[in-house]
Structure formats: structure tokens, C-alpha cells
């Protein structure tokens, strides 16, 4: 068997392992086994590549592999679960950087030998790789708080971006037709890196779930394009899987925020939100102490907790777990309702609550729990805002009108844990806070929850007996 055939067969096995590996993620029970399959696939693919007769020296591969492995292991070991969105954005940047650099090196070495189709793939690879690299870095900066989280906008922004994109595409076409001119190629790379920054700057931090999913898709496409340029099937397949995943997540996030997919594909989102003027009207609301909250919970039979980004900020997942556990010991039916865009990335809340040790069968998707709010005594909203704003259902003038929300307002009482009365990130006033069945409990969510747990233990002798 020739080495080429052998490598091809090894790649085939690796591709199957990737597919079965991702299939395992259909359930938490099979997920870890699936990941082990995918890991074996990756080791096989790398080992197979080393057999390629073009690989004539190993020292630089080794240097890169050791450095990358150390950095990767460090990030994996020390990233707190609350920082998972940042880590994800950063990893998209790394993936895109790798694709872009491979493309640039390939162009430098082989530009005279490449077919038109390969050049087109290469152009696509470098373009998407570069813009995803810088775009992901900006997303990382926003999530980490290094770059202002609010949308950064200026006059003529859309026209500028469209012109920039047109210039990039024009240069890419030119490079395909006339590959011998490196200047055009490198100007394209430079403009694409600039475009990545321009693409993400105008997007607010609250829209990050969509952006992260979209950058995920872009990074996958860049990897696939690398495969086309190098004529390498395993790259095409793995990139396609990643691209499909990013696209599906983008669509889910879009639906959950009532944005159209075209809106997302052109990246022109996050600007609709200019609200805040309406908030000028003084309205009355009720506020309560943790003692009052505990008294309310003591008489409840059914409780649903709605977590949001505020829970992550306050690191309140451990305190909320304590409260829910205590309520359950008191015989209360207590569960969690998770909105698809709660937090800063898909599945953010689930991971935080899992970290705190909450069983995943207590975490319910919006579609599965939304009808139960009517039969619920107390809904506890922790650091969530837009995802429970009834204006999305009722007020056509609201910027979030039409967005599917958790019907926390339908519960008999709603308890809202929040730092202050200031409107949420999007700057939209929340009607829920002024509703007759709503009570605000101000303060740091984690401290408030701890206080409620203490009070509840004193109020309910049964709890004290068990605790």
C-alpha cells in the first residue's frame, strides 16, 4: 500500500470518529465517550499526517506542538466557568489564525503552481481566517472588558463596511486571476483583518451569543477552505462539521432574539437598540429585604428560578444551588428555566449551574417550562432582564418586540434579584419590575441568596432539622 493510500484511509477513520464523537453530544450520558472517540480521531489524523512524504523535518513541528499544548492545557485548566464565553472567542481566534497562516505560507511557496480553483479556495481561507481572527479578538476583548462592551458606532459605518468588504472581495478575485502579485494578496489580508474588527465593534455585549456562534461558523469555513486549497479531505470534513455547528447555533440564537438570519449573515446587528428614553417616566415598584423574600418562599409550593448574565457576574450559581436544594428539602417543587440567550454564549447558564452541582434534569429549556409559570407560586429572576421582559409580547414599540421570552410575569409572585433599578445592558426598561406581582430584592445576587437561605432556615424548622 502506498503511503498516500494509507494516509487517506487513516483520515477516513478519523473523520468517522469525529462524526460519532459529535453524535455522542446528543446526551450527557454519551457525551464523554463521544469526546474520547474524537480525541482518538485527532491523534490518528496527526500521526497520519506525519507519514506524508512532504514532511521532511520534525523539529519545528515539535516546537509548535509543545508550545501550543502547554498554552492550551493552561487555558483549559485555569479558565473559570464564568469566563467560558471569552475562552471560546479566543479559541476561534486561534483556529482562524492557524488557517490564515497556513494559507499565507502556502501562497508564498506555491502560488505559481496553484490552479484557479485552489487559488480561490486559498483566497477564501485567508480572507475568512484573517477576519475571524481579529473579529474573535475583539469579541474576546468585549467579553473580558478590555474593549467597551457597548456598540461602537460612527457615521457612515455601514457604507464604510460594505465598501471595505467589496474591496476585499475585489482583491481576492484579482489574486485568483493574477497570483504573481504578492502586494495585492497582502493588502487583501490587511483589509480582511481590519474588516474583522469593524464587523464586531458595533455589536453590543448582550448580542455576543450570536456573534460567538457566527465566528464559530466562520472559523469552520476557514478550516474547510484550507482543505480545498491543500486538497486535504479531513480538513474539509472537520471544517464542515464545525461550520454546520456554528450555523445551527447562530440560527437558534437568532430565533431566540427575534433577529433574521440575513441580518446576522451580514453582521449588521446590535444597532437596533437605542432605547432608554421611555425610562424617564417615574414609576413605582416594590422592594423587599431577604427576610421578606424568605417569608414569601416559605409558603410557596412551586418555584422556578430564571438565571441570567447577572448570575455569572455575581458568581451566584453556588448560592442559588443552596437555595434550590433547601427548597427541595422543604418539599417545594423547585426548577430552573433557561432561556436560549441567557448569558453571553449558547448554553452558558447550563454550564455554570452544572459547575455548582445542579442536576441537569432540573434545567429546563424555554419550550418545556414556559407553560408552567402560570401554575407557579414564585418565579425568582436572578440577573436576567430582557429574557423576561413582557414588553416583548405586548408592546410593538419595544425594540425587543417579538422576541420569545420566559413568562415569569405569569407566576403568582415574581422576585427579581438585581443590583439596582438601572435598565439592563440593552438599555430597555423592563415592565416586569413595575408589575403588581413583582418584588425587587436589591443587592449582590450571591449575598442576597445566602441571606435568603439563612432566613429560610430560621423560618422553617424542618429545614433546620435536616440541615
Amino acid at each position, binding site marked *: 500500500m502506498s503511503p498516500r493510500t494509507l494516509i487517506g484511509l487513516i483520515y477516513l477513520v478519523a473523520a468517522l470518529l469525529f462524526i460519532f464523537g459529535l453524535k455522542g453530544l*446528543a446526551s*450527557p450520558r454519551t457525551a464523554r465517550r463521544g469526546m474520547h472517540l474524537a480525541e482518538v480521531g485527532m491523534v490518528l489524523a496527526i500521526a497520519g499526517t506525519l507519514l506524508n512524504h512532504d514532511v521532511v523535518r520534525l523539529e519545528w513541528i515539535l516546537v*509548535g506542538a509543545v508550545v*501550543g499544548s502547554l498554552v492550551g492545557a493552561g487555558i*483549559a485548566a485555569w479558565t473559570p466557568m464564568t469566563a467560558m464565553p471569552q*475562552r471560546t472567542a479566543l479559541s476561534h481566534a486561534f483556529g482562524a489564525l492557524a488557517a490564515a497562516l497556513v494559507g499565507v505560507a*502556502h501562497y508564498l*511557496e506555491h502560488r505559481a503552481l496553484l490552479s484557479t480553483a485552489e487559488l480561490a479556495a486559498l483566497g477564501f481561507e485567508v480572507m475568512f481566517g484573517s477576519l475571524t481572527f481579529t473579529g474573535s479578538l475583539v469579541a474576546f476583548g468585549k467579553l473580558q472588558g478590555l474593549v467597551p462592551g457597548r456598540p461602537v458606532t460612527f457615521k457612515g459605518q455601514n457604507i464604510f463596511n460594505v465598501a471595505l468588504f467589496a474591496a476585499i472581495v475585489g482583491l481576492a478575485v484579482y489574486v485568483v486571476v493574477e497570483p504573481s502579485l504578492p502586494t495585492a494578496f497582502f493588502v487583501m489580508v490587511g483589509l480582511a483583518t481590519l474588516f474583522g474588527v469593524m464587523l464586531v465593534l458595533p455589536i453590543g455585549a448582550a448580542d455576543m451569543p450570536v456573534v460567538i456562534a457566527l465566528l464559530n461558523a466562520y472559523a469552520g469555513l476557514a478550516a474547510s477552505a484550507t482543505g480545498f486549497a491543500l486538497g486535504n479531505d479531513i480538513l474539509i470534513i472537520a471544517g464542515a462539521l464545525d461550520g454546520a455547528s456554528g450555523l445551527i447555533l447562530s440560527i437558534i440564537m437568532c430565533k431566540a432574539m427575534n433577529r433574521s438570519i440575513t441580518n446576522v449573515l451580514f453582521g449588521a446587528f446590535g444597532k437596533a437598540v437605542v432605547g432608554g428614553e421611555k425610562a424617564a417616566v417615574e414609576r413605582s415598584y416594590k422592594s423587599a429585604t431577604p427576610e421578606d423574600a424568605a417569608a414569601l418562599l416559605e409558603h410557596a409550593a412551586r418555584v422556578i428560578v430564571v438565571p441570567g448574565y447577572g448570575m455569572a457576574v455575581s458568581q451566584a450559581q453556588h448560592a442559588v444551588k443552596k437555595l434550590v436544594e433547601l427548597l427541595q428539602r422543604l418539599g417545594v417543587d423547585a426548577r430552573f428555566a433557561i432561556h436560549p440567550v441567557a448569558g453571553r454564549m449558547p*448554553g452558558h447558564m447550563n454550564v455554570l449551574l452544572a459547575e455548582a452541582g445542579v442536576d441537569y434534569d432540573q*434545567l429546563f429549556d424555554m419550550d418545556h417550562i414556559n407553560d408552567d409559570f402560570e401554575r407557579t407560586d414564585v418565579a425568582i429572576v436572578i440577573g436576567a432582564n430582557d429574557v423576561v421582559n413582557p414588553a416583548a409580547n405586548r408592546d410593538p414599540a419595544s425594540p425587543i418586540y417579538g422576541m420569545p421570552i420566559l413568562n415569569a410575569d405569569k407566576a403568582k409572585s415574581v422576585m427579581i434579584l438585581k443590583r439596582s433599578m438601572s435598565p439592563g445592558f440593552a438599555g430597555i426598561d423592563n415592565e416586569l419590575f413595575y408589575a403588581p406581582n413583582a418584588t425587587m430584592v436589591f443587592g449582590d445576587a450571591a449575598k442576597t441568596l445566602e441571606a435568603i437561605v439563612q432566613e429560610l432556615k430560621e423560618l422553617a424548622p424542618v429545614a433546620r432539622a435536616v440541615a
Partner: protein
Amino acid sequence: MDATIQVMELYVFVLAAVVGYHIIHRVPPLLHTPLMSATNAVSAISVVGAILVAGADASWIATLLGTVAVAAAMTNVVGGFLITERMLKMFGRRDKGAAP
């Protein structure tokens, strides 16, 4: 390179994307964060392309770019799989007591 090979690659891409679409569609929202880190690790297969560049008999600049690319991709391979495992371990906690 002749066009037939390019069309075969297009087949591979489209079929893989369709398979990917159906598999990923079945992943519950519960696991969307691990899904992202997992697909990220899988797409770090770019390391294959990077190895081919870094290991080839090429100019120093291409070798340098290839080496950085290997490092960037390996960060995702190792980091992506480790962090996915770390998250999935948390989701598996409940089964620990029940497991034999």
C-alpha cells in the same frame, strides 16, 4: 489540477455539512457550550495543514508561519478537548453515585 478532483472535494464538503447539520441538530441546549468547545477542538484539525507547512522543505518565512500555525492549532486541540472534558465531567456528576 483537474476539475474532477475539485468536484469530488465539493462532494465531501457538502455531504459532511449535511451529516454535521443532522448530528448537531440533536444536541440539546443543555450541552451547547461543550458542543462549541468540542467542534472547536475538532476543527483544530487545521493542525494537519500547519504540520505540512512547518515540516516541509521550505523558506524560513513559510516555516516560521507554519510553526506559529502549529502552535495556534495545537492550543485548540489540547485546550478544546481538555475543557470539553472538564465541562462534561460536571454534567456527569449525577451518574457517579449510580455507576457501579
